[in-house]
């Protein structure tokens, strides 16, 4: 168990590789109740959500969700989040646990609209059921037709006889669902999902497998790929920035970056030499320091050592020979296309 921002959380249950493979081939479950939830309500809830996030909230239909960014006025990340449109006057944000209070203060500080912001993390537990058998597992516990929920859509229904928000979302690169329930129901729900998934050999999964899965899918982790010093363009997340939607916090510097370009950019790599380029390790080009690793790990699915790093933009493209300083020794690697893993649809 590790202390994770005040939450006592398992890094692994049966082993990272075993848990990882369960999600890729069958089904695994993560207790992600540490994730934060923030609710925006009121007649101008949509305006606040639009103003405080980078993606185009007006494009969301009721029951739809998208990935987005909360930025500081200087264009760096406050957090990366999921925005769910519950109703025209109600948006539900899923945010990173350790950023929850900061996010809440940030959103409240820019709220000049007729809307209320609630820090609602204590009202929700969250279970992520992920993998090709996730739907078959969860379907046993709910009358909601899960096949009818499109990817990145959600529905409010019942799981195991109690109210649940069932979202067809995930952080693994695999098909799956994230369900939000009252904290008092979490333990019972966990046990029921484990029983329902037993025929598919469901595995409980910890933070370790969550990290290897998201890395293979090249999903950002706050504090690694993104933080207050990194802009969405640098993080290769231009697709969540809608500069033409109107004003939003952080838009001005991003407009300038779009004109002038960015100096560094996130790119994937594979180790060629023996070793694992891990977070914080120096990346060299032609023997000179040029960037740093944000995340690195063995990839259980690909059986390679993979990672993400920042490099000067001219070199942040596939096929560049780089060296990573591993325990004071340069070890060869090459930049590659991402995501490292993409599931067959």
């Amino acid at each position, binding site marked *: 168990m590790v202390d994770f921002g005040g939450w006592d959380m398992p*890094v*692994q249950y049966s*082993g*990272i*590789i075993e848990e990882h493979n369960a999600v890729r081939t069958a089904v695994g479950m993560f207790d992600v109740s540490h994730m934060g939830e923030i609710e925006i309500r009121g007649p101008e809830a949509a305006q606040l959500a639009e103003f405080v996030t980078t993606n185009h909230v007006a494009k969301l239909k009721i029951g739809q969700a998208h990935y987005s960014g909360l930025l500081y006025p200087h264009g760096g990340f406050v957090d990366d989040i999921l925005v769910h449109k519950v109703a025209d006057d109600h948006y539900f944000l899923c945010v990173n646990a350790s950023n929850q209070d900061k996010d809440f203060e940030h959103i409240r500080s820019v709220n000049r609209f007729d809307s209320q912001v609630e820090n609602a993390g204590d009202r929700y537990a969250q279970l992520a059921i992920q993998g090709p058998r996730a739907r078959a597992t969860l379907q046993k516990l709910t009358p909601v037709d899960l096949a009818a929920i499109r990817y990145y859509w959600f529905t409010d229904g019942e799981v195991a006889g109690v109210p649940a928000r069932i979202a067809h979302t995930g952080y693994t690169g695999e098909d799956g669902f994230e369900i939000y329930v009252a904290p008092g129901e979490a333990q019972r729900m966990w046990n029921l999902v484990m029983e329902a998934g037993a025929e598919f050999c469901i595995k409980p999964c910890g933070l*370790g497998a969550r990290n*290897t899965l998201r890395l293979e899918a090249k999903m950002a982790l706050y504090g690694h790929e993104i933080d207050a010093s990194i802009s969405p363009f640098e993080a290769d997340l231009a697709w969540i920035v809608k500069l033409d939607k109107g004003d939003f916090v952080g838009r001005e510097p991003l407009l300038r970056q779009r004109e002038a370009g960015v100096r560094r950019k996130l790119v994937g790599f594979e180790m060629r030499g*023996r*070793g*694992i380029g*891990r977070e914080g390790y120096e990346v060299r080009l032609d023997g000179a320091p040029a960037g740093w690793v944000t995340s690195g*790990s*063995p990839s*259980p699915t690909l059986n390679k050592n993979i990672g993400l790093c920042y490099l000067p933009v001219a070199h942040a493209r596939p096929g560049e020979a780089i060296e990573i300083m591993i*325990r004071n020794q340069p070890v060869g690697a090459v930049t590659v296309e991402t995501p490292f893993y993409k599931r067959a649809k």
Partner: protein
Amino acid sequence: MYPENFRYTKEHEWVLVEGDTGTIGITDHAQEELGDIVYVDLPKVGTHVDQGKSLGSVESVKAVSDVYSPVSGEIIDANPALADAPEKLNADPHGAAWLVKIRLSAPAEVENLMTASDYQTYIGAEK
């Protein structure tokens, strides 16, 4: 679980002293905490190591960790089986997956180390 004839460190290494030779490994608790081990880096034969100093590293999917020598001396053997099969360290950390053998230069150092029952109390308290 924890052999009575081993001595243990707070950093979760063990040493088995036989005559002037010590066999060194990491504990079952260590391998369990590390999880799936993917690399083991050991020193060359002939290297001198000091008690409490790094003699190599063990890397799992999760993280890389130094291995600290429980005793001082000269490396006289490094387990050749671990280069190609590091996962053995998860399976048999107190047996076939020993790391190095060392010729003790200061045998009295062993007195600083924990007994099996001390170590089990120690990891019990750490949890």
